[in-house]
Structure formats: C-alpha cells, structure tokens
C-alpha cells in the first residue's frame, strides 16, 4: 500500500512537471493555431541562459548573494526570451500568416534547429547547473503507518506547486479577458482576425513571450532536476501525450492530462513493466493517450473538432 501511494504520488509530481511543458504547447496553439515544436528547444535555451547568466553574473557585477544572482539571471533570461519572441514574430510568423497548420509546424521545427545551434554556440554544450536552492533529499511521511514511511520528494513538491500556480494564472487569463478572446480568434482564422483589426504581430509577440516565460520556468525546474544540457529539449517529447490527452486547446487539460499521464506511466512501469521486460512507460503514455482519443478525438477538454458542410 505504501509503495503504491508513493508511486501514485511520484506520478502526480512528475505529471505536474509534464504539465508545465505541455502548457507551453497549449498556450501557443490556443493563441495562434501553431503547434510549436520548438517548445523543447525554448526550454533548453531558457535554461541555458539562466544557468550561464547565473554563472557569469558574480564575475561581472561582483554580486554574490545567491538569491540576488538567481533573480537577476532569471530576469535577464526572461528578457532574452522576449527578444526571442520578437525575433520569431519578425522573421518567421509574420511571413506565414494564413498558411496551413502543417507549414507553421514545419517552421517551428526550423526554429528548433536554429535555437539549438544558437543556444549551444552562445552558452556552450557542456552540462551546467541551476541551483535555486531546491532541496534534493527526500522526506518521509507517516512513518508510523507505513513501513519505511511514505517517501515524498521536496523538490518535486515545490516544482509541482509552482507549476500549479502558473497553470492556474494562465487559465484565468484565457477564460474571459478580451485579450484571451482575441487570442482564440487568431487561432481560428488569421485572416479574419486581421480583418477586424487584431494586430497579429503584437498578439504573437505577447503569446510567445508568455510561452517563453513558461519555458523559462520549466527550464529552471527541470534544469535544477536534470542539469542543464541538450537533453533538456527532449523532455518535450514527454509532454506530447499530455497535450493531446488534455486537449490541444485547454489549459486545465494540460494539468489533468499531465497528472493522468504521470500517474499512468509510473504505475504501468512499476506494475506492468516487469512482466513485459520493462521500459514500457514511454509507449504506455502514448498508448494511453491514443486509447483515450478513440473515445474523445479532441482529448479531454479540447475544443470539439468541427467538421461541417
């Protein structure tokens, strides 16, 4: 029982972290109809920036208090992400207004390459450290009830908390504000949105900046977990089943989807895995999502796919 609870809990925590990355996908998709494959690269880029800035700042400014250094590095990294958003709008999106989804998707793949190259050449391709003071050691709860106690990871707990707050804020933003509505309009039809005076450029810079911010937060959390290096961008692959399970257009879906996938894959790996030889969690997550889609093709909370003549 204790073990089951631990796994369940561990799954929930991991799921929250997936949601954080999934959120980036949802955000951009919802606001511009672009499936942003560069999200993983953005996470990497942001984390690299944060890690290296934090490394450089003491030398350059003489600042040494870790909180101050981290805060400054975070701020600078965020500025960089805004710059990036602006650049992407200027050089890429603006020229691809009203093109099909798959073209846009492809463009984001191009951006992915570009960012990976740029990130590594600016910041290096070694392994770097982000230390925002997250505790690494486990705590044990209910040691009376369960033998060996119930293991909970503090780092995960903090990370999940941050993720939850972010998600909640963004969900609110999208819900009823006029800007939220405009973003959804853009996703539906670029041209029509233009025609009624929604400035696509501004909207896109804003959205990509927000997505950059989400990527930065995800990068900091995952980076302090995994170390900052190239593989960080591959974490995005773990977020894809989350996005489709939750629904491409739903912010709450990203959370629930994350939790379901997190729990599902951990439980499957521990309880089914050994019978199949192990290593099943990655495909299990996708199969889970796939099976779910058979019942609801738009995911849990996604907008219904409209086909009407």
């Amino acid at each position, binding site marked *: 029982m204790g073990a089951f609870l631990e796994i369940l809990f561990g799954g929930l925590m991991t799921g929250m972290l997936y949601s954080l990355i999934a959120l980036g996908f949802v955000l951009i998709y919802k606001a511009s109809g672009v499936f942003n494959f560069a999200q993983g690269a953005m996470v990497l880029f942001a984390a690299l920036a944060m890690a290296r800035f934090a490394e450089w700042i003491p030398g350059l400014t003489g600042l040494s208090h870790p909180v101050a250094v981290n805060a400054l590095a975070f701020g600078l990294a965020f500025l960089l992400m805004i710059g990036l958003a602006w650049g992407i709008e200027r050089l890429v999106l603006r020229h691809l207004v009203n093109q099909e989804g798959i073209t846009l998707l492809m463009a984001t793949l191009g951006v992915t390459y570009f960012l990976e190259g740029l990130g590594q050449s600016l910041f290096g391709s070694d392994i770097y450290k982000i230390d925002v003071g997250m505790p690494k050691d486990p705590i044990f709860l209910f040691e009376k009830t369960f033998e060996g106690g119930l293991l909970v990871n503090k780092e995960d707990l903090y990370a999940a908390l941050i993720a939850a707050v972010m998600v909640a804020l963004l969900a609110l933003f999208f819900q009823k504000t*006029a800007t939220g509505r405009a973003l*959804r309009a853009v996703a539906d*039809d*670029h*041209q029509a949105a233009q*025609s009624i005076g929604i400035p*696509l450029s501004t909207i896109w810079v804003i959205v990509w900046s927000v997505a950059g911010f989400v990527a930065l937060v995800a990068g900091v959390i995952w980076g302090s977990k995994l170390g900052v290096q190239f593989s960080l961008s591959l974490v995005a692959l773990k977020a894809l089943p989350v996005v489709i399970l939750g629904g491409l257009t739903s912010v709450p879906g990203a959370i629930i989807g994350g939790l379901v996938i997190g729990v599902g894959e951990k439980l499957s790996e521990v309880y089914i895995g050994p019978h199949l030889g192990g290593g099943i969690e990655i495909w299990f997550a996708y199969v889970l999502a796939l099976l779910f889609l058979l019942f609801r093709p738009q995911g849990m909370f996604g907008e219904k796919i*409209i086909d009407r003549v």
Partner: protein
Amino acid sequence: MSNSDILLNVNGIEVIYNHVILVLKGVSLQVREGSVVALLGGNGAGKTTTLRAVSNLLAGERGAVTKGSIELRGERIDKLSTADLVGRGVIQVMEGRHCFAHLSIEENLLTGAYTRRDGKAAVAATLEKVYNYFPRLRDRRATQAAYTSGGEQQMCAIGRALMAKPKMVLLDEPSMGLAPQIALEVFEIVKDLNQREGVTFLLAEQNTHMALRYADYGYILENGRVVMDGAASLLSENEDVKEFYLGMGGGDRKSFKDVKSYKRRKRWLA
C-alpha cells in the same frame, strides 16, 4: 470631384498572385467620403482582389500589389497592416464569412470591438444595436459560429465589422446567402449608417439591382480592368448594364425559365 473629400483613392493597381498570376491589370477608383460605391462585375472579375488590396489582406493569399498606389485621405496605405487600417476606421467584411468557428456568435461580435477604446458600455450599446439589426443573431448568441446556418454566419460577419464602429466599410458580397428580406435589411443598414453616421461604403455585390439602388456611384470590373463607371442612376439606365447585370435586356425582366441555350456571355474585353 474635389480632391479634398476623396476618402479612398486607388490608382492604377496591378495585383499578382503567386508571383505569376496577374489578376488586376490597372484598376483605379475613387471613393468619396460619405458615399456608397458599388463594385460590380462577374465571377472572377477581380472585385474581391481589389478589396483585399485595399485592406492589405493579400499577403495571406500570396498575392501582392506590384504597381500603382492606394491612398486613404491622401496618405499612402500600401505599407500599413490591416490592423493599422482598422485603427484608421477602415474595415473589411470578407467574402465567405470567415467567422471564428470555435467562438460563440456573441464572442465573435465582441472580438469585432477589439480595437475600440471607448469603454464597455459603449460596446454593449453597439452590440445591442447589432442584435436589433439582426434579431436572428440574438437567438443564436450562445451557439458556436461553426454550427450556425450560412445566413446566420453572414449576419455575424457583417455585425462583427459594425462592432468596430468603422468609418469606412469594405463589404464583399454582403447579400450572399441571405434571405431576401434580410438582404434588403442589410442594404437598409448600409443606407442608415451612411446617412446617419456618415459611414462610407465600398461594396462588391452581385445583386446589381440592389447595389445600384443603394449606391451613389458604381464601377464595373471585367477581367481585372474597370470597364465602365458612373453615377449609379446612370449605370442602371445603361443598356449593356441592363442586359448583362440586371437581366433586363430589351426592357423587361426575363423569366429564368426562358433563358436560351445558345445565349453566350458578351464581354467588353477579350
């Protein structure tokens, strides 16, 4: 026409799609402040293209203006974005409706007010006005636009543009798909806004009867060129226009039943 009150001046524009397809071959037209101008012409004549050129919506269709100039109150607007134009009060109602499929009718209408800065109450008032113009929309306000009927979507698209309180509206085939009284209603709205609020209209229309009845001035486009223009009243007296656009060759309206099989289309230009 004195230059001062020319709101929109399109000067010999050429439009090319996809780098190779030349569609407009030098179109010039003027729209005076406070007038209603009709743009007539058969299928594929280039009406939609002209409107897109004005509102700068060509890029998304991979088209581009390669020659000529477009001026709004004397200011070149070729380089402005569509959003800038809306900021200057020029808004287009696109052909083929283009409602935001996932948004409800009401949300569609409200996005129309995106550029307005005059407060919630004013927007609510305009919304009320639009609902009064199109009561059918009020019934459907909570339905996602994709699931409304063709005519309802058309009303939604028109209503959405009106929500921006525009000074000039480019209407592309507003009556398409509308039941006759609603179509009539749309033209009444045009007249109403034009007369009471001084809104200028440039409308591409296939319903020539109505268009000429409500317009002050008309341009006839064929094959990417303006082949005739004149005051609406004069145009509707013109024999050619009568025959080809009003279906009244020889005076009377002909029954659609009697169209002759050998009848071929006459063009002013090859």
